[in-house]
């Protein structure tokens, strides 16, 4: 098997930072490895400061000598720490780069055409006339006209300069083309045209696209490598990685990315980007990761293959919190000996930090399923696996421990809250049952969760009883109670359907906020498709005891596959009355 065209192994680029702290070293790129085959296209995505541009520049040897370590092999030839004179004939001829910010990439005193022709004369020895002709051809290819070539840089628009830079980069027909942030700062139409252009370009040369624009990456590249704090988090086929991210960071990135497909609100990743001079111990992402365990803080995860992708995570990627296999439940109707099968055969998964919505009409079995998952009802068949443990196998103390990590929120708060207890006692009950901490610690915890749900913590409020609270307030108390044991998964059964519309919005937002902050999984059972569309990552549609459809929320809502789903969508409340008119 031939060695791939470009072979990068353990690339490290460190800078000395003198301003302020002496001796502080910025570890911009800290051990990146990837391959690029002839004609392949790879997108390196990441946020500002992740080190993507640094990688691009390292591939052209533009960093000060000594800053780059590791190995970069182009067609077998080692490039790291090559002397400047040896680099010169390689640059542009074999690897070329279209830099970020085309605005300042051109020398202001020469015409565009001259600058495009310049490398042709330098590397290929073309005469002035020949080079000018070639430049004209290149310009046409990228959609520029002769008048653009005659112009000076300040006379061209941003999009035109971007295309001119591409033409310039392609001039010597390099084997590898690096394009750094071509779409940033562009209006949508220019951006679309550029993406179109890049798709054509990738057929001629191996392409490395550096970008934080995930949609552009998906459209242009075959593979994508996600970079975080100078290290690779996930590498795989572009469409797959971006549609079904496996690494917690990639997943967070997708959630935060504004696009036309997702109606769900944006969610940021909690915490802050790491300091490049002082990265966190162990896994770089660990302080912000909701599923981090002790190992994550101690050792850096290697990039290993997991189901066709490369993932750097000790846990092998996003964890599956809850898995249900082929659950069944039937109730006997009184008297006749007849049986109502509430749940026929249901299988589902809830991943770490995810919001899954279970929708269906009344009688679909969704409420039953919810209760089965939490253990409020015994199953007739099938298994429920939580954090890798089968709930049926677990007894005694272990079961108690497990109980703490899954909590339930019911539809009617008045139903699940004792009218005799005060607010403080209600919220404290789980702590009392599980005997967590001292009395004082429990009281403090109660106050903490009440604050988290936006309720007052004064004695006057704490002493109230259920009938003294409104529906919204009581539901918040119920949520606080569910939070007090710091669960990993909350199953909420129609948590807001009994509340007024204004309260609904507030409580559902509260749930979402808590879920994101604490990194919990949330299974939301509801009949209200319009509502769950705002918060859900995935939607499962249930009908007559079976799950008929399931998938990413945006896909289910815009391209439903099952007719039932279609019907549900049609019937969902919409504010577009004109559509209803015959």
């Amino acid at each position, binding site marked *: 098997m031939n060695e791939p065209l470009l072979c990068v192994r353990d690339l490290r680029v460190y*800078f*000395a930072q*003198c301003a302020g702290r002496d001796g502080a070293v910025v570890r911009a790129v800290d051990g990146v490895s990837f391959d690029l085959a002839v004609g392949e296209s790879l997108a390196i995505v990441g946020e500002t400061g992740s080190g993507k541009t640094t990688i691009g*520049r390292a591939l052209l040897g*533009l*960093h000060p000598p000594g800053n780059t370590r590791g190995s970069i092999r182009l067609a077998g030839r080692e490039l790291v720490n090559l002397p400047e004179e040896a680099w010169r004939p390689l640059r542009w001829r074999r690897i070329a780069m279209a830099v970020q910010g085309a605005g300042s990439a051109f020398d202001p005193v020469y015409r565009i055409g001259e600058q495009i022709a310049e490398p042709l004369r330098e590397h290929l020895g073309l005469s002035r006339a020949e080079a000018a002709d070639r430049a004209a051809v290149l310009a046409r290819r990228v959609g520029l006209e002769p008048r653009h070539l005659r112009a000076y840089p300040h006379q061209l628009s941003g999009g035109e300069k971007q295309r001119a830079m591409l033409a310039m980069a392609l001039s010597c027909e390099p084997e590898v083309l690096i394009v750094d942030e071509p779409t940033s700062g562009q209006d949508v139409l220019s951006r679309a045209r550029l993406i179109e252009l890049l798709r054509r370009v990738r057929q001629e040369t191996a392409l490395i696209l550096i970008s934080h624009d995930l949609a552009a990456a998906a459209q242009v590249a075959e593979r994508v490598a996600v970079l975080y704090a100078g290290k690779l988090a996930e590498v795989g086929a572009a469409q797959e990685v971006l549609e079904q991210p496996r690494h917690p960071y990639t997943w967070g990135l997708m959630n935060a990315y504004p696009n036309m497909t997702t109606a769900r609100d944006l969610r940021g990743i909690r915490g802050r980007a790491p300091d490049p001079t002082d990265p966190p111990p162990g896994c770089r992402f660990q302080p912000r990761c909701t599923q981090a365990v002790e190992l994550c803080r101690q050792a850096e995860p290697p990039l290993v293959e997991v189901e066709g992708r490369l993932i750097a995570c000790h846990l092998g990627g996003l964890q599956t919190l809850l898995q249900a296999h082929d659950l069944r439940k039937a109730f006997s109707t009184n008297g006749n000996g007849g049986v109502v099968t509430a749940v026929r055969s249901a299988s589902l998964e809830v991943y770490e930090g995810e919001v899954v919505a279970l929708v269906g009409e009344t009688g679909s079995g969704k409420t039953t399923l919810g209760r089965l998952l939490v253990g409020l009802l015994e199953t007739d068949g099938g298994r429920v696996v939580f954090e890798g443990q089968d709930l049926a196998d677990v007894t005694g103390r272990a079961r108690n421990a497990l109980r703490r990590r899954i909590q339930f929120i019911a539809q009617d708060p008045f139903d699940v809250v004792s009218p005799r207890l005060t607010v403080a006692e209600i919220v404290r009950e789980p702590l009392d049952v599980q005997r967590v901490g001292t009395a004082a610690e429990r009281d403090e915890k109660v106050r903490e969760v009440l604050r988290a749900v936006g309720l007052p913590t004064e004695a006057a409020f704490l002493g109230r009883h259920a009938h003294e609270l409104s529906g919204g307030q009581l539901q918040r108390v119920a949520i606080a109670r569910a939070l007090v044991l710091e669960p990993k998964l909350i199953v909420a059964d129609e948590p807001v359907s009994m509340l007024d519309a204004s309260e609904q919005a507030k409580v559902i937002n509260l749930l979402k906020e808590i879920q994101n902050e604490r990194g919990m999984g949330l299974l939301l059972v509801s009949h209200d498709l319009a509502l769950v569309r705002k918060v859900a990552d995935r939607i499962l549609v249930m009908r007559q005891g079976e799950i008929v459809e399931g998938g990413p929320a945006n896909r289910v809502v815009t391209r439903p596959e099952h007719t039932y789903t279609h019907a549900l969508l049609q019937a969902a409340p919409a504010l577009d009355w004109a559509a209803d008119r015959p």
Partner: protein
Amino acid sequence: MSALSHQTERADRRASSLGLEITLGTAIFGLFVLIALAAPLLAPYDPHAFSGRPLERPSVAHLLGTNDAGQDILSELIYGARISLAVGLGAALGTVALGLLVGAVAGYAGGLLDTLLMRVVDVMLALPRLPLLILLAAFLGSGLVQTMGIISLLFWPATARVIRAQVQTVRQRGYVKMARNFGGGSGYVLRRHILPAIVPLIAFGLVAAAGRAVAMEAGLAFLGLGDPTAKSWGLMMRFALNLPGLLLTDRWLWWLLPPGLCITLLILALTYLGIGLEGRLHPGLKR
């Protein structure tokens, strides 16, 4: 190429060397100020007194010898600091005051007034400095105050330009508009927002103008356009050069060289102080 590879580095060693410049400049400048203030204590003789025979060589009584009139050169040198500093500071104040007034008004008012004032500035900047200086000095007569005034008149346009630019920048900043929204009037805006933005420029302008003024004053004295009664360093050099055959003896060593060195040192001190201040003003300045 060491030059270009620095582009990708984020190293910036400016902070440490700027500190050196400011320290050095301040120290030397301070030294001169001290000498000027303590002149009566430091100088062995009254510079106008004929304390010795003409053209004496350096001796214990006269460390730098005497000039052609028999006056002690060292005392002349020490008192000369007063003249140079006085004129330097006076002219600097005048320059900055004028420049501030015109620049702030033009930058803040804008419109016709701004255009008019800037036309004046442009014309003044286009005129050649020294010939105008000579013309004015010839017609207005010599005297320290006149010298200060003339120098101020010639240097204020550059200061006005710089201040105007800054005032304009601040004026159209968002926070000024917000202050307006809150109901703040022109006086408030000028006092609260614009003035703090110009203060660093004023400091730098004073230092730069002082440097130029010291040079100009010495030059005028050297040309004979200064105050003949004020014993400035430039005048000392003029008298020294008037002596026929001065250069053929080594008399220049203690008569010509000391005042020349003093002028150079003072100007250098002010220049370095200015460079240091400028570096603090513009942290992003690449040098």
